[in-house]
C-alpha cells in the first residue's frame, strides 16, 4: 500500500457517506440486549421509508453508556441525538423521526456530565466507526501515523516521542512506556517481539474488551509503530477467551490489514515488515502477569518466573520482548498524530493523558468513561455516575481489582493519578471502578477478592498458594462470627508475609483488599469478633 492509495480510500469512503448517520452500538453489552435485532429493524425501517439514499445505518463499537443500552445515535449535519434503552419494537420510530415523525424510543441526554466530563483519546473512534470495516478507520485518518513514522522518523525518534509524551503503562503498574520501549530498542537480538496484553482479568473491568471490540485497528497500528520503534517484526495479541466478540473483530481486522498491505512485508514501500498473530487465553487470571503471559504464548502452564531478567531483555523464546497493555498501545496513534507535547499537556504532573475506567457496581449511570488524569473520584462517582440507583449512600469505590483497594467516601476528593491513588492505599489498576453502597459488607468484599486470588493462584510459590488459602479461611471465620482478636492479628501478619515474599504481582498484591478494608473499615471487622475466653463482655 502506498500513501496515495490510503488517502484515496479515505476520500472515496468519505464521499460515499450519506446525509444522516444512524449509529447502532454493537459491543458485547448491547449485543446481549438484542442490538443485532435493533440494527435489522432500523435497516428495515430505512428500506420501508425509502430513505436509503439519505440514511446510513452503521454498526459501531461501545458508546460507553452501557447501563442504558442498547444505544442508538442519529447524527445529521453537526447535531447528534442519542437514544437509550432502545428495543427492536421502538427502533423504527427513530427512523420515522428523521423524516419528521416522533420517536418513541427514550431520548438520552448528551449534555449529561457522564458525557461532557469525558475526554476521548483512546476512545475517540469508539462508538463512531464500524469496527468491522477497515475503510471506516482509514476514513478517520487510520494508518497515516504508521506511514508517518516509517517515512519520516527514525526508530529512535519514535521512542523519543513516546518518552516525551509521558505515557505510562495502562495495565496497572504505571511503568513509563518510553523507558520500556527504549530498553527493548537497545536490547541486542536478531529477533524481537511485540506482545499486546489483552488478558484483562480483573473482575469488574472491561476497558480493553471495549477498545478491541470498538477500534481494533488502533491497537494493530499501535503495535506496528511499536514494532518499527524497537525493531520487531512479529507481534502477538493475547486475548482472553471470555471475549469472543473482541477475538472475532481482531481476526477480521488483521485479515483486512493484511489484504490492504498494512501488515506484512515491506510496509509503505519500506524495508519494514510486521505481522500479528492472535493467541487466545484459556481462563487463567495469572496470565495477565507478563512472564506468565509469555509462558502461555509458548504453550506452557501460565506460571510466572522471577524478574530480572525482564522481558525487555529476555522474553518470548528468550528474545527481547515489548509487552504493553491494550490501552497503552491504543494511546500510540493519538500521540504520534497529535504530538508528544499535546499529550503531555493532558493530565497531571506525573500522570499524563487520559484513563479509561469501567464504572460499575451500585451506580446509576454505569458504563465506560475516559477521563483526564487528575479528575477527582467525586466528579466521576457523583457527577458522572449520578450516585446509587436506589438512593442508598455510597460507602466506597474499589479500584484496581484484586490487587487494588477500597477508597472510602471521605477521600473522594482524591485526584485520579498513579501516585495519589497509591497514597490512599489503592492503585490505578487497569481501570475497574466498582462502586459500593452502605449495603455492601466490606469484610465480605475482602473475602470475595481473597477467594478470587486463592483460586487463581498458580501454585508455584508457597506464600501465595498457601497464604491466600489461610487468609481466606480467616476471613470466613470472621464472617461466621467465630473469630477472635487473635485471628485478626494472624490475618494482618499473613498479609504482611504474603505481600513481601510472593514471587509475582498476583501474590504480592493479593492482601491489598484486606489491608485497605482494614485501614478504612476496621470497625466492620471488630464488630464481628468474639471475645477471648475469660474476656469481659460489655
Amino acid at each position: 500500500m502506498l500513501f496515495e492509495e490510503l488517502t484515496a480510500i479515505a476520500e472515496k469512503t468519505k464521499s460515499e457517506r450519506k446525509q444522516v448517520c444512524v449509529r447502532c452500538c454493537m459491543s458485547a453489552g448491547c449485543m446481549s440486549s438484542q442490538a443485532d435485532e435493533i440494527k435489522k429493524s432500523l435497516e428495515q425501517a430505512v428500506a420501508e421509508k425509502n430513505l436509503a439514499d439519505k440514511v446510513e445505518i452503521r454498526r459501531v463499537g461501545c458508546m460507553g453508556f452501557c447501563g442504558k443500552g442498547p444505544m442508538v445515535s442519529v447524527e445529521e449535519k453537526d447535531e447528534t441525538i442519542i437514544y437509550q434503552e432502545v428495543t427492536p419494537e421502538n427502533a423504527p420510530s427513530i427512523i420515522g423521526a428523521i423524516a419528521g415523525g416522533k420517536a418513541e424510543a427514550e431520548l438520552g441526554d448528551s449534555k449529561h456530565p457522564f458525557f461532557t466530563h469525558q475526554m476521548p483519546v483512546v476512545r475517540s473512534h469508539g462508538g463512531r466507526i464500524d469496527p468491522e470495516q477497515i475503510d471506516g478507520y482509514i476514513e478517520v485518518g487510520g494508518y497515516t501515523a504508521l506511514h508517518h513514522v516509517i517515512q519520516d522518523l527514525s526508530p529512535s525518534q519514535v521512542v523519543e516521542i513516546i518518552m516525551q509524551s509521558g505515557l505510562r503503562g495502562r495495565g496497572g503498574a504505571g511503568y513509563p512506556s518510553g523507558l520500556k520501549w527504549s530498553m527493548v530498542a537497545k536490547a541486542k537480538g536478531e529477533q524481537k517481539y511485540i506482545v499486546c496484553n489483552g488478558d484483562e482479568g480483573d473482575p469488574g473491568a472491561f476497558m480493553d474488551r471495549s477498545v478491541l471490540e470498538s477500534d481494533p485497528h488502533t491497537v494493530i497500528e499501535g503495535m506496528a509503530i511499536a514494532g518499527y520503534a524497537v525493531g520487531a517484526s512479529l507481534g502477538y495479541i493475547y486475548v482472553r477467551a471470555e471475549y469472543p466478540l473482541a477475538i472475532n473483530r481482531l481476526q477480521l481486522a488483521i485479515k483486512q490489514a493484511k489484504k490492504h498491505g498494512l501488515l506484512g512485508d515491506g510496509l509503505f514501500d519500506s524495508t519494514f515488515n510486521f505481522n500479528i498473530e492472535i493467541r487466545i487465553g484459556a481462563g487463567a487470571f495469572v496470565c495477565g502477569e507478563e512472564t506468565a503471559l509469555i509462558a502461555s504464548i509458548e504453550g506452557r502452564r501460565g506460571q510466572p518466573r522471577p524478574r530480572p531478567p525482564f522481558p525487555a531483555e529476555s522474553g518470548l523464546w528468550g528474545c527481547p520482548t515489548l509487552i504493553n497493555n491494550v490501552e497503552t498501545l491504543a494511546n500510540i496513534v493519538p500521540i504520534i498524530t497529535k504530538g508528544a507535547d499535546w499529550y503531555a499537556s493532558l493530565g497531571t504532573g506525573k500522570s499524563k493523558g487520559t484513563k479509561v475506567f469501567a464504572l460499575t457496581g451500585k451506580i446509576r449511570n454505569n458504563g465506560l468513561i475516559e477521563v483526564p488524569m487528575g479528575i477527582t473520584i467525586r466528579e466521576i462517582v457523583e457527577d458522572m455516575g449520578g450516585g446509587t440507583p436506589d438512593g442508598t449512600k455510597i460507602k466506597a469505590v474499589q479500584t484496581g481489582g484484586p490487587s487494588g483497594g477500597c477508597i472510602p467516601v471521605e477521600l473522594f476528593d482524591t485526584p485520579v493519578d498513579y501516585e495519589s491513588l497509591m497514597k490512599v492505599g489503592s492503585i490505578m489498576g487497569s481501570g475497574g471502578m466498582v462502586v459500593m453502597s452502605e449495603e455492601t459488607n466490606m469484610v465480605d468484599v475482602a473475602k470475595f477478592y481473597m477467594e478470587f486470588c486463592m483460586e487463581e493462584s498458580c501454585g508455584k510459590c508457597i506464600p501465595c498458594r498457601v497464604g491466600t488459602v489461610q487468609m481466606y479461611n480467616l476471613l470466613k471465620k470472621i464472617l461466621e462470627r467465630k473469630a477472635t482478636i487473635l485471628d485478626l492479628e494472624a490475618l494482618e501478619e499473613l498479609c504482611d508475609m504474603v505481600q513481601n515474599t510472593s514471587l509475582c504481582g498476583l501474590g504480592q498484591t493479593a492482601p491489598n483488599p484486606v489491608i485497605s478494608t482494614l485501614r478504612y473499615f476496621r470497625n466492620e471487622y471488630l464488630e464481628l469478633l468474639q471475645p477471648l475466653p475469660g474476656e469481659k463482655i460489655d
Partner: protein
Amino acid sequence: MKAQQISPPSADKRWKIIDVKMRKLGYKSHALIETLHSVQEAFGFLELDALRWVSKSLRVPASKVYGVATFYNLFKLKPQGKHNCVVCTGTACYVKGAAKILEAIENFASIKSGETTGDKELSLLTARCIGACGIAPAVVYDGNAAGRLSPEQAIEKLKGYLHAV
C-alpha cells in the same frame, strides 16, 4: 526428528480439523494451547485419547500436556452437557447479587457450579468476569449473554434454553 503427521486415534473426521491447526503452527510445541482449544471446540471436552495424540504429534511429554490441560480453567476433561449456563461472578455482578442467581440456578438444576446434570442436559459454570459489567448481574446461556437479571428471570431464561430444540 522431523515434525510429521501421526495418525489420529479414530476415523472421526474432526481429527482432521485439529491436524490442520497443528500443521499450520508447524507441529511446534508452542502450538499446544491453540491445539487444545481446537480439540475442545470439536469434541466439547478433552478426552485422554486426544491428549495422547496431541502429545505425540507435537512431541510434548504427556505429563506436560496434562499439566497444561488441567492448569487452565477453560479446558474441560469431562464431557459437558448439551447446554451450558455460565454465571458471571465478577465484582460488578457480585455487588449486584450474582450469588443469589447462582444459588437459585443451583437449586433449580440440583447441581453445583462446575457440575453437569445426570441427563447431560445442562452444565453449570461460573466465570471470573465476562466483561459485561455494564449489564450486571449477567449470565451467559449457550454463549449468549443476558444481563440485569433477577434470580427468577435467570431461571426463566434458562428454562427457555433447556426447552429449545
